[in-house]
């Protein structure tokens, strides 16, 4: 505690001399900012369903995220079977979520459930990690997920392929909306881990040349499903 008081004491002492504010009339210095939101300055984000889906898809192309918009859970199963055959999947890692438990058995592979507390080495052996998410962000092509919504921390980063299953109603226009959603959903008890995933893992550390799959998943797939009738969630 004493170190804390020492540092805070030095800070208060240092702040006795006032600094010039940023060159802006709106700076009041008491945290009451001009009331404008980042929405007015950040890249434009569409607000309607169709526009959001379009913008998200466009960002996926740029980011090299594999994106498909399917019409039904049956089509989602077909998509997963396609991937299983193309990549030779043998083991799926996943977590409990209504939509996942209704479709994953049809893929016909052993499933490693995070709820059973598998060892790190076992998750690492899985060919794919399949999760749901909290939201998709049209403005940036990002996936918002948390340790509570998507089976913990390791599942979405350890296997070489990450498949995200999302509903159309989970599309959000922009980052501002994403942080509002986090607040609304979790404000009394935030998950210990929240992440925005924007494309498959990458690096440019060697001659600034883009390489995918540096430490995280080499492939990121997002499958967008229509909402269930009756409005139930994932």
């Amino acid at each position, binding site marked *: 505690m004493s170190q804390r008081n020492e540092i805070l004491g030095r800070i208060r002492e240092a702040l006795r001399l006032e600094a010039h504010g940023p060159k802006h009339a709106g700076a009041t210095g008491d945290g009451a900012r001009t009331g404008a939101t980042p929405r007015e300055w950040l890249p434009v984000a569409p607000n309607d369903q169709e526009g959001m889906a379009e913008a998200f898809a466009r960002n996926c192309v740029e980011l090299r995220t594999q994106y498909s918009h399917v019409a039904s859970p049956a089509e989602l199963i077909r998509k997963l079977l396609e991937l299983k055959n193309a990549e030779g999947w043998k083991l799926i890692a996943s977590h409990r979520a209504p939509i996942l438990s209704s479709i994953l058995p049809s893929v016909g592979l052993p499933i490693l459930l995070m709820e059973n*507390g598998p060892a790190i080495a076992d998750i690492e052996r899985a060919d794919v990690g399949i999760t749901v998410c909290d939201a998709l962000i049209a403005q940036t092509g990002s996936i918002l997920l948390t340790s509570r919504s998507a089976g913990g921390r390791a599942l979405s*980063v350890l296997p070489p392929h990450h498949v995200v299953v999302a509903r159309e109603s989970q599309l959000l226009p922009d980052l501002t909306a994403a942080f509002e959603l986090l607040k609304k959903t979790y404000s009394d008890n935030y998950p210990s881990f929240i992440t925005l995933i924007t494309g498959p893992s990458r690096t440019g550390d060697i001659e600034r040349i883009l390489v995918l799959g540096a430490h995280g998943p080499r492939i990121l797939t997002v499958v967008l499903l229509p909402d269930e009738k009756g409005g139930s969630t994932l």
Partner: protein
Amino acid sequence: MPSIFEDQFRSSASKLTGDLRHRSLIQKSLKGYEKSRDEKQARFQDWEAARLAAAETKWEAINHLDKYLSEFADNLTARGTKVFWASTAEDARNYMLNLALEKRARTIIKSKTMTSEEIHLNEALAKAGYDVVESDLGEFIVQLRGEVPYHLVFPAMHLTRDEISHLFHEKLGSPETDNPEELTMTARREMRIKYCKADIGISGANFAVAETGMISITENEGNARLTTSLPKIHVALLGIEKVLPKLGDLALFLPMLATAGTGQQLTCYNSMIGGPRQADELDGPEEFHVILLDNRRTQLLADAEQRDALHCIRCGACLNVCPIFRNVGGQSYGTTYQGPIGSVITPHLRGLPDWKHLSFASSLCGACTETCPVKIDLHHHLLQNRRNATALESSQLDRNSFRAFAFLVNHPGVFEVVAKVSRLLQPLHRLVAGSKIDPLLAWTATREAPIIAKESFRQYWKSQHK
């Protein structure tokens, strides 16, 4: 007397400025950066307004640092995080060493943190016998070479793929290749083994959110996510200036950091961590420690004139546009933080007498100030550092030269005579230019002396306005 750091800087800088291979490598990578940065910046509806908002937000945070830092720490503690306040680099290192000892750790994995470079954490841990591995690809490469990072965002930008291939071949036994993808996969395989057995993961943080008690980490590779997820203990080391008031502030800062830092709309992973594994969660570290480091940041805070240097979000944009950085290279600085921001803050963090030379290694062109996403007045701070350095110690020769110069420009008659004489003498100077007896050797060693015009501007003006 120049400090040893100044001597080092001078000798390394003059070597690298003449190295054409180095120059073309750096110019090429920065050209790519500029193109994507411009493209992403253009997508903003109003980049200037965004900069202003970011500057205001950081101003608010830094000028009420006591309040926000307490809020940040209290929120973290409430959810089971151990917060340690470190006044000095030594305090932070000792905390880490004691923790590693207490937990009987052997392998420690790190994701990129410049703050740990600042306190020389790797050396301390290695000396105590721990196996410390950098997981960021660029950091891993410079660690294998026994070097310090070249750039605070792109640590290995001074190396070619051939050099990296030789390095991996020699140190890891991998086959030689000129394919960056294969090289990356070699590092990935190497690191996966380490992740599975590491006892402690050490990370930095890009932001500290006071409102919710979370650190935010920005990265592309996924190594920070693995570092903060797999080991039983996660330690985050961050400077006290990282604070942002609200969670929603990230909606502005994450895209600005990505745009200015790497020319991306958003980096691949932006993760917010607010505690160890909670009761209802499936995995994650059992313990989460946050080390809040002062290490003379409060001294910079006390300098109201340059306090805004603490607004820095370490995007590295000022390095990328700096004509000095691009020629002398990052490692010449001999500092943790290179380029304009490093030249501004290092004299505060490590003492003006040893580091005052950095503020003279600037053309004062202002490109840094213009590009800074949080509007730090970098080139004026360099000027202020020069002023402070001169007040500390100025040479008799400098004082006399400036006195003579002041006399000259205040006496037009004398000025004209001196100009005329100089013009007459210049052909004689050409005979010795560049040789050892040239009084202007400091200039002529690498440049040609400008020719004094036949007619002064005053004479020209008079002849035109008769």
